[in-house]
């Protein structure tokens, strides 16, 4: 290779920064693009912790147990080999952060402390108060800054990725980005582009996500030919504070530390006397109690409020109670979330039970990505179906199947970066030609396409407001595409999305200038959100079963014969084209997923084989 290869990472959350560090550590230069200063990325919102079977509590925890919990928790939809590798790497990842100086909570011996989380019986979650994501992000931000000073990383903060640049053979040769302050659009040559652009929560209007989580970059790649996988799998977190601007997460770690969920009882048979607390999760799921996985807890809360009418004051609210936990413990382990509740609700949760309701939280689905397989073909960790285009973190579908376990997201973002970074280098080194040698015409073509699109947006002169349309999209998706799904409502939602897409071209940008034009950027994001919303909703419509976070009362059972498959959406101008790919279940045979009783061992033979070799 004549010139040094170039690498672009888009997104500066945990996945993106881990990727950057791995590439820089190998001595390669990285251009890092982010819509916000990377230290402000959405990873800061992760509260509870990061999973790893470090097994310092004498519980006999193992990476295999972590793997089995994750696969079982994900209702067997995840390809198993990458999840196994992730769980094996987890203790080392936690130790790496420990060496970077993350202020994890400690035991009296000065070791890392671990707490309980949903969907497991083990203390497996390392944590730094209740702002673990923030603390991990800061650690990686510091290491990236070190490489920036060393000249191996160039940051482009305040730049938005608006598309990749394919050559005539379809290989990714660079990216088109727009500087948000000046409005300047520019092409960047690169031998590998790694998207680490986060989840699409904003498609649901208000969620636990940050305002930057539009899914716009993933949608742009999808529209150019990258497959979008399992888009219908949206995690609705059971415990959040409703708000006008945002639904603020109240971490699962609150229940991990002993928090209990209840409503005043109606005194019916098998329940406490009228008005007494009914700890309904503990009653319905005696084996896991308040620590059932999120999809299970969320459906239970929906049942309490919507079917039984037992929400607080008949409304969509239940109690999350920590008033029985000593204040010193709450302050040492949960201060960050206690503070959020206090600041935004105005009540002290140490004294008064919190009032919460489920909220859209996480996308298990995302861009389809590969991993090494034993079929004699070249496969690269985290590479999409577009050669040279990689994806890591929440913007890809890789690790969580039909439902993500709490504290596995911080782990999967970092693991994906650890694998994706080095494998992007491997891919680049195996190529015969470089991006530097690619024809200028392919860059000019993409520049023109985006420039035309921008001009078209700025010239629009209709009655609609993009921010208003976004609020409508959010209401529509929250109504049809969250906890309980019905085919007639999903069909109606697809019709409504189509109508929003028509109305989109009747907006007026309330700002026509180039300088820091937020409505321009938001409108393009909205355009991309509408297209992704369609792929997600069609995926849900066609999946006639219930699995993990995807629940249809008309099809209440999991249907492995028809749907133990990854949904793949391919963009066409006429709408998404869906196909299905087999799931790799080679390590653990799928079994029924239940949380009212203890998880049964699952594949003792496979397990023994894996352990011996």
């Amino acid at each position: 290779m004549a010139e040094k290869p170039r690498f672009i990472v888009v997104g500066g959350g945990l996945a993106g920064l881990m990727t950057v560090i791995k590439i820089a550590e190998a001595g390669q230069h990285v251009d890092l693009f982010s819509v916000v200063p990377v230290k402000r990325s959405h990873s800061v919102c992760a509260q509870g912790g990061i999973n790893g079977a470090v097994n310092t509590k004498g519980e006999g925890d193992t990476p295999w147990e972590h793997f089995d919990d994750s696969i079982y928790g994900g209702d067997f939809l995840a390809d198993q080999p990458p999840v196994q590798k992730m769980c094996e790497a987890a203790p080392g990842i936690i130790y790496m952060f420990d060496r970077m100086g993350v202020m994890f909570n400690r035991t009296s011996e000065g070791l890392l402390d671990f707490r309980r989380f949903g969907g497991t019986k083990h203390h497996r979650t390392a944590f730094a108060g209740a702002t673990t994501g923030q603390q991990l992000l800061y650690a990686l931000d510091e290491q990236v800054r070190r490489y920036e000073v060393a000249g191996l990383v160039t940051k482009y903060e305040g730049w938005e990725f608006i598309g990749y640049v394919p050559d005539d053979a379809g290989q990714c040769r660079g990216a088109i980005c727009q500087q948000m302050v000046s409005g300047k659009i520019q092409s960047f040559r690169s031998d590998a582009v790694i998207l680490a652009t986060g989840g699409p929560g904003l498609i649901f209007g208000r969620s636990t996500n940050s305002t930057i989580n539009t899914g716009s970059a993933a949608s742009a790649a999808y529209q150019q030919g990258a497959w979008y996988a399992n888009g219908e799998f949206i995690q609705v977190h059971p415990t959040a504070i409703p708000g006008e601007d945002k639904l603020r997460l109240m971490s699962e770690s609150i229940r991990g530390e002993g928090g209990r969920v209840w409503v005043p009882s109606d005194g019916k048979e098998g329940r406490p006397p009228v008005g007494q607390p009914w700890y309904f999760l503990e009653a319905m799921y005696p084996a896991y109690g308040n620590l059932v996985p999120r999809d299970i807890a969320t459906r239970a809360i929906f049942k309490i409020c919507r079917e039984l009418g037992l929400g607080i004051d008949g409304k969509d609210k239940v109690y999350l109670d920590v008033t029985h936990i000593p204040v010193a413990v709450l302050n040492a382990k949960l201060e960050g979330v206690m503070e959020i509740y206090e600041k935004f609700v105005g009540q002290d949760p140490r004294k008064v039970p919190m009032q919460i309701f489920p909220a859209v939280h996480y996308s298990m689905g995302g861009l389809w990505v590969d991993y090494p397989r034993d079929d004699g073909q070249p496969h690269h960790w985290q590479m999409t179906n577009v050669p040279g285009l990689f994806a890591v973190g929440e913007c890809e579908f890789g690790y969580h199947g039909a439902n993500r376990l709490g504290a596995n997201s911080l782990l999967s973002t970092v693991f994906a970066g650890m694998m994706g970074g080095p494998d992007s280098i491997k891919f680049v080194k195996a190529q015969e030609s470089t991006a530097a040698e690619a024809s200028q015409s392919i860059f000019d073509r993409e520049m023109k396409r985006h420039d035309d699109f921008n001009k078209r947006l700025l010239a629009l002169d209709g009655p609609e407001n993009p921010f208003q349309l976004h609020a409508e999209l959010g209401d529509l998706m929250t109504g049809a595409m969250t906890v309980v799904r019905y085919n007639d409502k999903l069909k109606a939602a697809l019709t409504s999305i189509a109508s929003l897409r028509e109305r989109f071209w009747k907006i007026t940008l309330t700002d026509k200038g180039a300088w820091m034009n937020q409505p321009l950027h938001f409108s393009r994001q909205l355009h991309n959100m509408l297209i992704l919303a369609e792929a997600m909703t069609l995926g849900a419509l066609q999946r006639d079963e219930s699995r993990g976070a995807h629940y249809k009362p008309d099809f209440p059972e999991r249907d492995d014969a028809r749907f133990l498959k990854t949904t793949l959406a391919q963009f066409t101008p006429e709408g998404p084209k869906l196909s299905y790919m087999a799931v790799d279940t080679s390590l653990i045979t799928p079994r029924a997923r239940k949380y009212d009783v203890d998880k049964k061992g699952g594949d003792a033979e496979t397990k023994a084989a894996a352990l011996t070799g």
Partner: protein
Amino acid sequence: MIGRMVRMRVRRQDGPDQSSRWEDFEVPYRQGMNVITCLQDIQKKPVTRDGKTVPPVAWECSCLEEVCGSCTMVINGKPRQSCSALVDQLTEPIRLEPMSKFPLIRDLIVDRSRMFEALKRVRAWVPIDGTHDLGPGPRFSPEKQQVYYQLQRCMTCGCCLEVCPQVTTGNNFIGAAAISQVRIFNAHPTGAMHASERIDALTEEGGIQDCGNAQNCVEACPKEIDLVESIADMNRQATRRIIQKMFGG
């Protein structure tokens, strides 16, 4: 019936070289709303109180739960995050202005890159040998973790610089946030191996010696970080370093 309206005054400026102006807005009141909700309402209907359609107010935000630091602005004269500024606790009209110690980009958006540059200057990181698996990090006590975890909650929001009389747009005083970061890394068992490098950086031009001890920073910090103690600790370390150097250390 017209419900209760929330009155806002926003200082607008189209770009760095433009003049600024005040614009008044009104948005419908809802219980529990914050300044972000008000600004989002203006985005949906960017019309001033006197009926003029204007570009929506430009501002930065992201997490909306006071952990990312993005949405910092001056609200009724005080720098703070607009997500945690609840309308019920504010006097109306609510006055929104950009922070004044950073270069203005547009409306309420400023360029805070001097804060990130300061982190480079003081080498605010633990210089690990690599990201490969080298086993656990150093042990330390829960008491120490509690102290330094609190310091590490700094979200680089800029409130401490905004209120500091020593920070001006024209100078390069490093400010309380970066000084407090040095305290963290110099206390970490591995970071401490490189403490003198950071102290040397901290005592270069625009360093800790420019602190005027006004102690406004500690009052302004939304995370209640004990910045005064951080500055005092770093001053002690700087003094020790000077003595050490005098004796050829």
